[in-house]
């Protein structure tokens, strides 16, 4: 312990004089979700994985500042918007890998192959079965209908999940229509936007409102802890035939950094993460859906029922994110 401290304090580069078999990861996906995977990878291949976690924004600022001399080989984050932004700022490099192309469906990766989705996070509707008949629910857009007045709870617009959702809606319907929808949501709110998905669901369960929009794994976690809560999942936008069809999905994913020193190892790790072996480990630990279509979701997750995903490329969410944020500001969605 003392030695590592001295080495760290000393102004030397000893620590980074890299052995060959090593990958360095900057990750916005939290330690408890990635460490088991990296441990398994090291065990299987002998390649050491060094990683550091932080929020997406600071990690990108860090990559940018370090430029050519960054120690990072792989940038991993939990939202397509951030991945798109990283690519936009030239922090990632394209990877041509047949394995990745085969394992990750087209709409879950960058059109230029600079990043790849590794798990799917579905943002869906959760309602209180005591107060809502499933038949009343249909689409995200329908939640703007005056019949939901005083019955809707939403998480804050500051969370990237909602920004992506609205960004996708802008892609589907255009700004004007989307703004009307968002204004409708705001009008229907039973209470000020809540700080997180769990709080939103608890409000629904407590009867403060009837329905909300959340990521499924939050639902899974809450139901695990308090199975008795009157909450149920509804998959919206299933019966549409237009481009708005399907449940809005986002990804957690990763891309190889532009100045990666261990590019080959990074690609290999990325391929491994998308493989059948790793996908369950990757997704199940957080009750997410595997990105690889050949891998089945965790039985507990699968029990919520199958659903049709929206097939628009998630990169569009990144492109339109700033627009979405400004739109929500205009609409008074806090």
């Amino acid at each position, binding site marked *: 312990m003392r030695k590592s401290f001295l080495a760290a304090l000393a102004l030397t580069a000893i620590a980074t004089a890299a052995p060959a078999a090593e990958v360095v990861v900057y990750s916005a996906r939290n330690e408890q979700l990635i460490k088991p995977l990296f441990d398994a990878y090291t065990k299987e291949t002998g390649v050491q994985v060094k990683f550091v976690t932080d929020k997406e924004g600071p990690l990108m600022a860090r990559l940018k500042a370090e430029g050519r001399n960054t120690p990072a080989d792989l940038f991993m984050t939990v939202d397509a918007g951030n991945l798109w932004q990283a690519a936009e700022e030239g922090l990632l490099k394209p990877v041509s890998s047949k394995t990745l192309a085969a394992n990750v469906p087209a709409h879950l990766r960058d059109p230029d192959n600079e990043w790849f989705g590794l798990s799917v996070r579905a943002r869906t509707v959760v309602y209180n079965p005591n107060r809502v008949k499933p038949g009343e629910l249909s689409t995200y857009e329908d939640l703007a209908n005056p019949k939901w007045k005083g019955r809707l709870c939403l998480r804050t617009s500051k969370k990237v999940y909602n920004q992506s959702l609205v960004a996708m809606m802008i892609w589907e319907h255009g700004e004007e229509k989307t703004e009307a929808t968002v204004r409708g949501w705001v009008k229907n709110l039973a209470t000020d936007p809540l700080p997180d998905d769990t709080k939103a669901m608890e409000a629904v369960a407590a009867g403060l409102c009837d329905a909300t929009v959340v990521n499924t794994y939050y639902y899974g976690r809450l139901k695990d802890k308090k199975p008795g809560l009157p909450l149920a999942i509804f998959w919206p936008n299933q019966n549409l035939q237009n481009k708005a069809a399907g449940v809005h999905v986002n990804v957690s994913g990763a891309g190889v950094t532009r100045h990666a020193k261990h590019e080959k190892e990074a690609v290999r790790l990325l391929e491994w993460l998308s493989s059948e072996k790793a996908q369950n480990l990757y997704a199940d630990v957080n009750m997410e859906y595997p990105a690889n279509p050949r891998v089945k979701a965790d039985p507990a997750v699968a029990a919520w029922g199958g659903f049709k995903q929206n097939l628009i490329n998630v990169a569009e969410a990144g492109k339109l994110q700033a627009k979405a944020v400004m739109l929500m*500001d205009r609409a008074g969605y806090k």
Partner: protein
Amino acid sequence: MPGLIASGRLAPWLAAAPIALLTAVPVLVVLSALAHPDQEIWDHLWRFVLPELLVNTLWLVLGVGLGVTLLGVSLAWLTAACEYPGRRFFAWALLLPLALPAYVTAFVWLGLFDFTGPLATWLREGHGIMQLPPIRSRGGVILVMSLALYPYVYLTARAAFQGQGRRLLEAAQSLGESPWRAFWRVALPMARPGIAAGLLLAIMETLADFGTVSVFNYNTFTTAIYKAWFSLFSLPAAAQLASVLIFFVFVVALLEYQLRASRNYAASTRAAATPTRIRLGGWGAALATGWSALVFGLAFALPMWQILDWAAGVFASDFDARYLEFAWHTLLLAGLGAVLVGGLALVLGYAQRLRPGAAMRVTARVATLGYALPGAVLAVGIFIPVAWLDNQLIERLSLDGQVLGGTLLVMLLAYCARFLAVSHGPVDAGLARISRGIDEASQSLGVAGARRLWRVHLPMLRVSLLGAAALTFVDIMKELPITLMTRPFGWDTLAVRVFEMTSEGEWERAALPAAAIAIVGLLPVFLLIRHADHHAHT
């Protein structure tokens, strides 16, 4: 030139300027983004975001300012000057809320008192009372932040009250004033510099806070800066907002300084009369104990109880040997950081004492600006020049990897930029209480300059310095953005654990490291108060 240094004319500047640069460089790096203003985003913010957040921020600063003053001063007075049941316990226990990260306290409060919380549910189901006053409201944020931040005022005001001794209050009494009125007319006005120092810290932290206001989804300048940067991907717009914030803080800080510098409160060096406390009896004692217990309960016991309850639930699954390492890292960083920050604050305060004047005042204010900036903004501002320097070194010297990045040295310097204000406040207030006559006496005995600081001021400042170091210690323990951004690979701390859990909404699991922080933070708080009380009595 060497002559000038030897004669001490330049020395204060040579000491103060580098300290100020530690903060000035990151701030300038952030502000440099102003060179390419982002008109479109700025227009949007101006129209749709700024009006709300200006009002919100103003209310928050006013509300929290009033709240922390009320709580901090009343409790400081009670524990410093009065005697009532439980005083000895409350004297140090009332500092404990500092050891809890404010956003964790906020989350616990929200959980307990929101519509879905146990209290509201119980009232609703058992008693048909549908509505509590909403906790997710302006009043709620102000209440919770006041409860989390009052210890800053408590600590500095308490030191000020203790420094006064009882003599002046007796003088007031002999002139016909009751103890209660003597407090208003003598003790309070005299403690003003100390109170102002603590208040300034609380206000700076309020302005810089992102975590707590996020829990309440309350929009402030800081949330707007985060939005501009991380959601709208516009660094220039974030810098534009930050520059307004910096300007505001600068003005407030200079005002505080004016308030303080206009009067010389150096107390008489003669030992005060035996420190007799005002003995409260009957209703007075009941009220004092009740008030102390209420604040302690709401600000610490209640959230801590919830945190421990959660932590107990996940202890079996989450606790492992790595926690020893997290705790060791936390203690090491906080300990080294507190010593370094305290030392620099002392040097800076002493430089100000040697060279009073507008230029030095501004220098000191620049040096302490880092505390008012949103943490992540400052972290990036620090990281960019470090990375630049690294890249220069790597290219000039054809090195293999980073030299500075990922070293503890950078982390510690970054903490200095962030927390200098925390130490500077108490140290400065402490220095102000030392009569100038002491300086002259020492000089006449041939002890001047740095030696005088070491031999004369340092021993006299022991209590203030210890307070400064303890505050910095607990603040570093809780610090996130800088720790996240500059820590070496694998160098996780307890605060980092809290981050890993809360950022995925796993608050119950975050309770374990949060409880560990609070428990580790207990020690310095306890020692600090014991030491301060001991010295007030000798």
